[in-house]
């Protein structure tokens, strides 16, 4: 099944639709509580269930929205209080939590689900950048499938530039500029379907293979829609071949433009990664 979504920057949190998964980068000057409250108020008006994943230490009572928001600390609620090192399938668990909550919201009579994830909950979890993006991918797939509205709030003081850049490329939408932007995005378009957009160059050398590996690992096959891919360099092209071989997952690159196809051939990747199919 293919899910229709759009990517790109958003100018605010008050125009989001079902299926939107936004990385919100905020510095200390941003009034998180007020903007979050406004975001939730719109959800209330639309008959959506309001949900927040946040660290326990950040009291939700500080949000001027009264009741009506269900709050979980993901670490306690879904991950048995564990660190990333002790829990293998975080991404599935977090995505699974979103799916469960959406089903529950439906049973309770809501028309959908609206979620803010305060990413500060990741503190002290020893999560690496690759693990964070893997987790976000799980959330992105669930967001697309459930047509939820999900905003992941990244406080700039809590994360490194590399982590922020990694987070930016695994969300179809971003709100406010991310320092160290990597230049591409990879987001879910349905079951085992992903969209690649933007430019894959030296800046993506670490994060792109990590993202692709996380999306491909353990899947029967993966379809990558490259229609929005404006540029990919030799290293990025080779990374696709490496991921296909290492995960054993056949990759189907849809709308692969001529430059990508010719680069694939020039680099001798047809024989090296025969399970990758480049489709026009």
């Amino acid at each position, binding site marked *: 099944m293919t899910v229709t979504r759009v990517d790109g920057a958003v100018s605010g949190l008050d125009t989001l639709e079902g299926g939107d998964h936004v990385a919100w980068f905020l510095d200390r000057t941003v009034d998180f509580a007020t903007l979050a409250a406004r975001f939730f108020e719109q959800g209330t008006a639309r008959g959506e269930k309001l949900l927040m994943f946040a660290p326990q230490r950040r009291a939700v009572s500080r949000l001027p929205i009264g009741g009506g928001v269900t709050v979980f600390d993901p670490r306690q609620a879904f991950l048995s209080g564990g660190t990333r090192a002790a829990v293998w399938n975080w991404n599935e668990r977090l995505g699974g939590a979103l799916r469960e909550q959406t089903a529950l919201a439906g049973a309770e009579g809501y028309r959908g689900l609206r979620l803010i994830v305060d990413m500060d909950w990741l503190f002290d979890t020893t999560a690496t950048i690759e693990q964070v993006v893997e987790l976000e991918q799980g959330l992105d797939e669930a967001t697309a499938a459930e047509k939820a509205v999900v905003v992941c709030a990244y406080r700039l003081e809590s994360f490194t530039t590399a982590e922020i850049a990694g987070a930016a490329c695994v969300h179809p939408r971003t709100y406010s500029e991310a320092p160290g932007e990597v*230049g591409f995005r990879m987001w879910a378009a349905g079951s085992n379907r992903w969209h690649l957009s933007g*430019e894959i*160059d*030296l*800046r993506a*050398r670490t994060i792109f293979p990590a993202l692709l590996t996380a999306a491909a690992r353990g899947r029967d096959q993966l379809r990558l829609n490259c229609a929005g891919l404006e*540029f990919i*360099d*030799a*290293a990025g092209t*080779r*990374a696709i*071949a*490496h991921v296909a071989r290492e995960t054993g997952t056949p990759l189907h690159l849809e709308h692969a*433009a*001529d*430059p990508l196809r*010719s*680069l694939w051939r*020039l*680099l*001798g*990747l047809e*024989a*090296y*990664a025969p399970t990758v199919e480049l489709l026009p």
Partner: protein
Amino acid sequence: MNLLPRHPGDGSLTTRADAFRHEALLYAGDEQFVSATAQFIREGLSGDEAVLVAVIEPRASLLREGLGSDAPGVEFLDMAEVGRNPARIIPAWQEWAERNTAAGRAFRGVGEPIWTARTGIEILECQQHEQLLNTAFDAGPAWSLLCPYDVSTLPPEVIERAAHTHPAVVTQGTTYLSTAYPHEDLRTEKMLAAPLPDAAPPLCELWFDIDDLSRLRAAVHRCAPALRLDARRLSDFVLVVSELAANSICYGGGKGRASLWREGPYAVCEVHDDGLITDPLVGRHKPNPRERIGGAGLWTVNQLCDLVLIRSTKELGTTVRAYMDTHAELASES
């Protein structure tokens, strides 16, 4: 020309090589070309050697005709295509050598990289290519490569240089050892320090680091009309500029300067940085697909461009100038 008759124990042109044998064949006109190369080829075929001939037309057709019933046993490559960028010739021979070595078959080749229509700078690069053949194959399998030079049309200094880049020279049926080989001018450091031809005034000049890659590619797009790049060539050229800039960022001190200009039939880009290249065969090794980092950038540039000049010294840093011929595409559009 400094030549010595080959000693009797050194073997003749047509015997099977016991090491890489790289010889220049001096001939005058098509008739001599066909008779000398056909003899070399037939000797190979009679010893069950695989034979590859990389020459331009009409010499390929003349040779096929001259070989008659032997022609089907010979592989031909169009040198005008494979050698359009001289840096693509060594990989073609490497592929040939690997293929036959893997099959356990002896092999030989005829390669004529220099012809009269080559421009001065192309000839210079072809001469460097001839020298690099020794670097690439001296430590490899035993095989013979015969490089024909037409003394009736090529300038005398080009013929003279053939004796600098080939350990032996064959003329009028006799093989001579070249006492001018190896030549001081063709040491790796000297080749990498050779002056570049004057550049035209740039249409665009940009200093870059890793955060400017996107801006750099956008600049190439903006210059496309002035560079006379059609859509297909533009995407190739964008990739070339981006790969060269990425090399500067990775190996040239994290930053560099890119310049773009139009020159004759070419769109040209030049990227300069503070790095140092010491491998004279850089960009000529087909990248191993297993490698994650390195080896693919200059290879890709060589595959996409019609001429690539690499200069690198400790004092001046590294400059790579890549020429892309847009003439054919524009002519076909009109």
